[in-house]
């Protein structure tokens, strides 16, 4: 068994997870085991779809030709790799959709978002895939900010963002724009030209942080840079829209709890839309826009 830590939890895992920092000797919050999943009763769960079945505290997920996962009670994941599946691919979905489900089961908010440290806490930058979140996280890292998490942000009920694990995943185009040399970097997954950019201990923030502000990253076809403050009820929908794997929530019976936690988070925190031009990258300008906005936040 390997011991790891991420998102404020200690994992004991039969599967090696090289991206995650060591959990030391601490007792496990979550166990990850390899083995055959007992399908009994899974077909009678309230939500049954071709690739996932969900019930109260239990989720079964099937990624074709990769693996099946059983995620139980926020405490255990059983991984059944398909024959011929590459372990690196199994890991990808374990740390993605399966872990997302587990974190939901533990009553956290799980958002499609990165989290980067600023004075007094952290900012979250969320948005749909391909909008530029990781590129921005990398740019803020290069500008001297510590990174808490790249892909998924986990907010615990005490409204703290938990540290993820010390890496940023970057497409080749983004790495080129940021002048990051990919020659020594591993690929996330052949043949996609997406790289794992590791962060060292100085570059990664391993302490939970309060949220100072949240941004939703949008591309602007008109070619504008802009920041737009959201107010009142308008704050909630972007958070719901950017909830990771929100399709699992209904089956898990968690929608009401989620909404209540989202409302609590939204109530306390400025949420703004951040627009960047669709073409003509100008990442430095975007970084400056954020820095300027964060400076207005106060302590």
């Amino acid at each position, binding site marked *: 068994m390997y011991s790891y830590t991420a998102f404020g939890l200690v994992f004991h895992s039969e599967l090696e997870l090289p991206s995650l920092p060591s959990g030391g000797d601490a007792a496990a919050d979550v166990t990850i085991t390899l083995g055959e999943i007992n399908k009994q009763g899974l077909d009678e769960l309230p939500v049954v*779809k*071709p*690739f*996932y079945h969900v019930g109260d505290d239990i989720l079964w*997920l099937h*990624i*074709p*030709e990769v693996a099946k996962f059983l995620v139980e009670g926020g405490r255990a994941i059983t991984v059944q790799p398909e024959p011929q599946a590459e372990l690196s691919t199994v890991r*990808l*979905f374990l740390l*993605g*959709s399966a872990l997302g489900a587990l974190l939901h089961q533990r009553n956290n908010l799980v958002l499609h978002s990165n989290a980067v440290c600023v004075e007094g806490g952290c900012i979250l930058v969320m948005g*749909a*895939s*391909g909008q530029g979140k990781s590129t921005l996280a990398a740019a803020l890292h290069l500008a001297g900010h510590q990174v808490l998490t790249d892909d998924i942000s986990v907010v615990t009920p005490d409204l703290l963002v938990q540290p993820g694990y010390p890496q940023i995943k970057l*497409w*080749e*185009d*983004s790495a080129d724009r940021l002048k990051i040399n990919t020659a020594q970097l591993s690929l*996330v*997954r052949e*043949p*996609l*030209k*997406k790289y794992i950019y590791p962060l060292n201990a100085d570059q990664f923030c391993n302490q939970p942080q309060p949220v100072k502000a949240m941004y939703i990253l949008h591309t602007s*076809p*008109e070619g504008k840079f802009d920041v737009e403050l959201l107010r009142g009820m308008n704050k909630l929908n972007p958070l719901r829209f950017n909830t990771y*794997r929100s*399709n*699992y929530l209904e089956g898990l019976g968690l929608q009401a709890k989620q909404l209540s936690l989202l409302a609590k988070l939204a109530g306390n925190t400025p949420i703004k839309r951040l627009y960047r031009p*669709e*073409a003509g990258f100008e990442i430095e300008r975007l970084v400056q826009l954020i820095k300027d906005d964060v400076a207005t936040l106060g302590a």
Partner: protein
Amino acid sequence: MDQANIYWLASYPKSGNTWTRAFIANLREDSDCPVPLNEIKTGAIASSKAWIERGLGFDVSELTIEELESLRPAAYLQLANKMTRINFHKTHDAYSFVSNGVPLFPTDVTRGALYIVRNPLDVAVSFSHHMGTSVDKAIRVMEDPEAGLAKGVKSYHEQARMRLMTWSGHVDSWLSAISIKRHISRYEDMRSNPLVAFTKIANFLELPSTEEKIARAIAHCDLRTLQAMERKGLFYEKPFKAERFFRKGQVGDWQTALSTKQVDRIIGKHGQMMEVLGYLNKAGSPDVLPLPQSPLWQAGESL
């Protein structure tokens, strides 16, 4: 459970798909004013990863092109199951089969497919402007059996890879899709005889088809109206490199825009399909307005 809830609106790029969707949006809206450009919403484009991901229920951003393609039929089955009314979804994909021989567009979910086709001579010109490249490049893309959109691996694409095949291959693939109900509409007929052409489209798609409603919808998506709207504000479907989305829309633009060599090359490669569609006369020369006596339409309207 009847899942046949989707009409696919299929075409090779630059063949009139957006114009057709503008017509559908205006027909459904049935209002005094034209539907604004950026509100022409039929359904998500078939290759939209966000839409496919909704159907599957797990992250697709790190799947390979081939893996994603083989999962698209299952995604559409799931999505169609949840539909409570008829949906229209655009596609530029050729009608093809995924790795295990299953059609990309499952027969069970397909209520029908409207296929819009345009003279490849005009398509080449329009495509080159749209891509911001030379006409020769556009012609080469139209000849490439491996041609596709959104197929690079160096950055994230919002869409799954769309197989185009060659222009002829694309048309042939939809003409040969005999397991689904299809209606073929020629861009040139939609321009020269809109009331007839668009009434056939409305009927096929089970949309309101009174002459009055159709005429009004046609007026609201008249090219000059669309161009005027685009001049007032950006149309989000315009690619960055293109100057405008609604450029000329002119039947026969190829006569001034293509050299003799380019015309000969296109006819050389696509002549057979052009003949089937009525884009070559009996002498084998291109006609500005396709003859209405095309063999395809003598066989019957709906296929």
